[in-house]
């Protein structure tokens, strides 16, 4: 009788004393398994490197009065040919380059076109009045050039900090020149 009373009166205290302690540990292995499975899935499907863009501004064709004459002595002409080759001449017109055989060959390596652009920029000089380098780089793509070359050369403009450049189509003299070089 006393025991019963004790049980009832003691309430929780009494029960705890005699009750079996249940472990609160949960086996988390399957949960972790599932977690890592999903992580693997998302890691493999995700596209981490978001593509970037390069801004390109072309001159407005409708505005003609802004056109300025470009002195041949200040231009460097870069022609992209097949197999990632670059043909270039500087300070002369295409006609003169053809007559005097001034066309030279280079490539897209750091010691190639990048060094040449920097050298030519320094050679042509700095305009104190306008506060810019006088060089104008004329970029032309031959029929055999690839889009990659175009992006690469624009990249070189970006890397060397050349501000004055233009993408222009080839004229007949240059086509002839390139053909002669590419065919051997």
């Amino acid at each position, binding site marked *: 009788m006393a025991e019963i009373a004790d049980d009832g009166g003691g309430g929780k205290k009494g029960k705890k004393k005699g009750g079996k302690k249940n472990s609160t540990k949960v086996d988390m292995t399957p949960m972790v398994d599932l977690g890592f499975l999903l992580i693997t899935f998302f890691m493999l499907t995700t596209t981490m490197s978001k*593509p970037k863009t390069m801004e390109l501004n072309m001159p*407005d064709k409708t505005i003609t009065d802004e056109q300025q004459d470009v002195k041949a002595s200040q231009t460097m002409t870069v022609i992209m040919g097949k197999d990632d080759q670059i043909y270039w001449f500087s300070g002369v017109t295409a006609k003169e380059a053809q007559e005097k055989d001034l066309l030279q060959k280079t490539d897209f390596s*750091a010691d190639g076109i990048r060094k040449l652009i920097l050298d030519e920029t320094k050679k042509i000089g700095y305009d104190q009045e306008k506060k810019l380098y006088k060089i104008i780089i004329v970029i032309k793509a031959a029929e055999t050039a690839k889009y990659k070359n175009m992006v690469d050369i624009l*990249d070189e403009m970006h890397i*060397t900090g050349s501000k004055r450049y233009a993408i222009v*189509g080839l004229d007949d003299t240059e086509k002839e020149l390139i053909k002669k070089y590419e065919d051997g």
Partner: protein
Amino acid sequence: MPKVKVKRKGVSLDMTAMCDVAFLLLTFFILTTKFKPNEAMPVDTPTSVSDLPIPDADLITISIGKDNQIFFGVDAQPTREAILKKVAQEKGLTLNAKQVKNFMLMDNFGVSIAALPAFLNLEGPELSGFKQPGIPCDSLVNELSGWVMQARYANPKSRIAIKGDKATDAKIVSKVIATLQDQNINRFNLITGMEAKPMAAGL
């Protein structure tokens, strides 16, 4: 000799911390992931040192594959519908609701207007197996010009991005650029991959 009684110990270890990390990473990947869109034509873009991000909205994408086929795509679905309706009206095409819906679901396409109704009837495996020839962009038939024009009417805020493959001919890209310039579009973006900037260069 009595055996030494080895006390067996449970090998269960506390996995709470590991679980926490796993789910933290999981949450991160779920939130940052953006599924690759199902592309009709894979384009392997060249890399550049430029690090401008692509505009998120109002983007017209002109993709050029390695075999010089031109694809056209607009990001927003309502704009797609508006463009298609305008072009269909102009060219006298009649398209049913299903064809319009199919068009709206396409990220980009590369067929001529004449072949468009038949192309929009394709579904599922037929569609993914179909090799799209590209949009004509010659001096004779320049349909790309028409699509770009309608896209700009439908959304005047749009920017134009050109996504060319490494092996695309520069000639074709120049042609696309010339097409855009004819419409007095002189600013556009070239989509490129990332590349590390070389040290010690510049003026």
